[in-house]
């Protein structure tokens, strides 16, 4: 009997009946539920920006908030599909977050072209590392939970899955900071919101390699 036949015989002897994993929508809703609760609890301890009511009437602000929300949702969807070895045979889904990302960047370009649409606080009230810390705090639980979901499945792209998971979690932070941080300067957004999120995604690559390989 060859080694392969022996292996098959051993595998067939093992207890076969098992519960199939949840569908992508189920996994996404599970993550989204945990994220909404965690973010809601954390937001309760934060102070909202003083001009929030005014900003809510600005189409640029609403557009940015929506694009960041969609970035969170789409990156989470990609992470959920990366749970499955064959991405549920939808390989092009990995490009989905590029759409809201492009929309968000378009709003950044608009703010650069029309600076009067941008609120910049006085220099003594400009935040820096605080924003990066805040994004990280918001990202901890959603990121951890996505890793927990991914570890129960069988991703064949551990580094990508790690990166996308933490990017989804960081997007939550970027989304929430729009309601908290009174600085809409594009340079500030890129330096202290986007760059830390990309760094978190880089950390996700390392964590994915370590914890999601199987």
């Amino acid at each position: 009997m060859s080694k392969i036949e022996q292996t098959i015989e051993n595998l067939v002897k093992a207890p076969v009946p098992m519960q199939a994993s949840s569908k992508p929508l189920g996994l996404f809703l599970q993550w989204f539920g945990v994220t909404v609760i965690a973010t809601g609890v954390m937001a309760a301890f934060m102070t909202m920006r003083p001009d929030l009511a005014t900003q809510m009437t600005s189409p640029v602000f609403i557009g940015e908030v929506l694009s960041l929300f969609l970035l969170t949702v789409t990156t989470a969807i990609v992470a959920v599909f990366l749970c499955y070895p064959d991405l549920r045979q939808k390989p092009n889904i990995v490009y989905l977050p590029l759409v809201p990302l492009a929309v968000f960047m378009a709003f950044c370009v608009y703010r650069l072209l029309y600076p009067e649409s941008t609120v910049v606080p006085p220099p003594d009230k400009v935040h820096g590392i605080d924003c990066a810390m805040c994004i990280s705090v918001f990202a901890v639980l959603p990121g951890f939970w996505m890793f927990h979901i991914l570890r129960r499945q069988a991703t064949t792209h551990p580094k990508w899955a790690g990166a996308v998971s933490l990017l989804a979690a960081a997007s939550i932070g970027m989304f929430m900071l729009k309601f908290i941080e009174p600085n809409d300067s594009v340079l500030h957004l890129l330096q202290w919101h986007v760059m830390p999120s990309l760094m978190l995604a880089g950390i996700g690559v390392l964590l994915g390699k370590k914890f999601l390989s199987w």
Partner: protein
Amino acid sequence: MASAIGGDKRAYDLVLQAISSRLLAALSKKLPPKDRDDVVQEILLSVHKARHTYEPTRPLMPWVMAIARYRLSDYWRKHYGQALDRTVDIDDMKDILPTDVTKDLDTSEDIRRIMPTLPQKQQEILDLMYRQDKSVQEVAGLLNMTVSAVKVAAHRGYKAFRKRLKE
């Protein structure tokens, strides 16, 4: 596969047999024969481990091949990693190395020792050609000799030099 996941051992056996034969065929040209069975075994174990992620309404082979690619990239990473780490002990090579390279080096001391033992003419020719880097024509002009005579004398001097170096 759906009935196999549901607990039908016979169906599971058939599925794994079919997968293994497809994998052996697919990997026959990609892997060295000695490693092929081991890689197929690894893939079968991974299929077993990840079987809960299979969606019964979708085709099976793309799912299996995604796992196979993952395991194959693991295999190649390990294979090339080992190749980079592989070292050869110089003592294991001494029988096939032509000479002991650390012992038979021609040193300047050897040259200084042997040169005076050669005939005067050969000493002059070798000195001009190999120390002062003159061409055969230049040496012939300097020593008032024909080019062919210089070549013959240089060859003889070189041969004598080599013979004394080996003694």
